[in-house]
């Protein structure tokens, strides 16, 4: 393409493997947010593996509203349930919903974005108009409407959040495909007689990965926030405590038990902040054009 794109071209030179290994340089300087994420995953695994926490998170204890102590790190709630074990299960729920919903968005978004960007023409116009519509639609309100109409089990919540998040991914994928499809190596593959599918999946997609990885982290964090908001309204899956559901339960006891509200919220804040910071760092690392400008 034009000369203006050369710096971009340098970024994409090298095999997909090199790109991937380069993208892991973030490990060197993004300690805090990675540590936070790993710690949360460890906490949720710990809760599953260590006997006292292994049991039913909904099991009621004898002491209600016990403040945080050595026996109950985060106190107990109105029904005497251990807040820490619920917190840990909540971590698992939030991360699970976040990652699976983001994966759903990415699968739909990448597929549609690739089709639009590669084929262009009428398909592109229609798909992008639909994406635009989905971006304008108030996601939270639609999710709320859908879940209250169709019921609130975990799978449906994941699917709903995933279905509402694809336009961002589709737009990014499309943009990448629009530029990459004109590159020499793609033209070479095309004139070499490779099938369209092979070109899309083995030539273009690997090179479009860097911005997609960033988009994926952002999808996870916004899915976690969306799930928390829905559960806070009581639309979550009641049998699987999530951080949002815990905050919903805490609302009526704000005066009596601050710990019921404080810990789950800190969990959401740290996870989402870690993902956002991580995504920002990835953008810097994966986009060498911005590198060296001093952050």
């Amino acid at each position: 393409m034009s000369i203006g794109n050369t710096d971009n071209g340098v970024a994409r030179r090298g095999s997909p493997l090199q790109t991937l290994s380069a993208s892991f340089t973030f490990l060197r300087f993004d300690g805090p947010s990675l540590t936070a994420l790993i710690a949360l995953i460890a906490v949720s695994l710990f809760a599953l593996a260590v006997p006292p926490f292994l049991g039913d998170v909904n099991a009621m204890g004898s002491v209600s509203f016990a403040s945080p102590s050595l026996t109950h790190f985060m106190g107990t709630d109105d029904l005497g349930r251990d807040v820490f074990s619920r917190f840990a299960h909540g971590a698992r729920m939030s991360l699970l919903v976040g990652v699976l919903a983001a994966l759903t968005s990415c699968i739909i978004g990448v597929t549609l974005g690739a089709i639009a960007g590669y084929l262009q023409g009428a398909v592109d116009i229609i798909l992008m108009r639909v994406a635009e519509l989905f971006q304008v639609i108030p996601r939270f309100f639609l999710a709320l409407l859908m879940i209250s109409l169709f019921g609130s089990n975990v799978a449906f919540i994941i699917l709903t959040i995933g279905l509402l998040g694809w336009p961002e991914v589709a737009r990014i994928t499309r943009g990448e495909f629009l530029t990459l499809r004109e590159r020499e190596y793609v033209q070479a593959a095309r004139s070499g007689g490779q099938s369209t599918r092979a070109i899309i999946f083995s030539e273009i997609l690997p090179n479009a990965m860097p911005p997609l990885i960033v988009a994926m982290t952002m999808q996870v964090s916004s899915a976690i926030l969306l799930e928390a908001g829905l559960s806070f309204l009581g639309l979550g899956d009641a049998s699987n405590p999530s951080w949002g559901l815990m905050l919903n339960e805490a609302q009526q006891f704000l005066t009596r038990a601050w710990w019921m509200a404080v810990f789950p919220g800190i969990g959401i804040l740290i996870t989402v902040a870690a993902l956002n910071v991580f995504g920002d760092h990835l953008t810097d690392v994966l986009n060498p054009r911005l590198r060296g400008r001093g952050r």
Partner: protein
Amino acid sequence: MSALATLRFIGLKILSAIPMLIGVITVNFILVHLAPGDPISVLVGETAPTQEQMAELAAKLGLDQPLYVQYWEYLTSVLQGDLGYSYVMQANVSDLILARVPSTLVLMLTSLLIFTVLGVGLAILVARKPRSMFDRVGSFVAVVGYSVPAFWLAQIALVVFALNLRWFPTSGMTSSRHAYEGWAYVGDVLLHLILPASVLGLRYLAINFRYARASMRDALSQDYITTARAKGLSEGRVLLHAFRNGILPIITVFGLNFTDILAGTVLTEIVFGWPGLGRLMYDAMYSRDYPLLMGMFVFVSIGIIITNLIIDIVYSIFDPRVRLK
């Protein structure tokens, strides 16, 4: 010519908003028909409407008609401003919604104005000095503001500032014990406004700081800034140069974030018992008042479409290049 081009652009933008509007209404229509049970039982929910109301609803939905006729009827009635009837509240959905809009707007706009100015101001302040103390503090606050669930922050603010310190009232928009009038009334509302507006504002501050900072730094690295400095302009004038070019992207970013901001407002309202759309939505959800929930969805969507339309138009006025696309 230029005025004509602007008008043409605005006209095209308005035209392109119409398919969006139809899209939103279509989503609603599909949901009613996909929902478990027939549309009538979905719409009346757990209420027991009178015979007349049932007959009226059946006639309005035209369930004996083919689907495309039903769709056309629904589309045209919504486009004429009829959002349906709430059987739970025994009132027109549009009346119920419009009654709550002012309180939500008071909360949103106050917070938006104050914290946008703060966020952009802070970004301009630090744009020339990256890695300074202010920059680090600002960036930290921005990450927190961007990541924190507004409703949780609302709960914590409520516990600390209203329940423990007793600086602010815990809920509502006015005191229930006194009926203030005139300026005292305004003061009363303002006192109730401080906590929810600040909680919401942290997100505006974060979004604006984040983007204004990036945008200002980008603008400051352009050649015309070097030229301006070389000409010997004061740093204040240089910043003004950068500001005029750096501020535009922020408007678009706001449009993109508007839906999340609305969700945050609604949830914050619920925590603080603010008598706006959030509270209405919460009640509608619990009483399974689907006509009201659907009406709110259409209403909020229209609000977002119009906001984006205004943003596009404002943008084109400030940056004529947009019109050429």
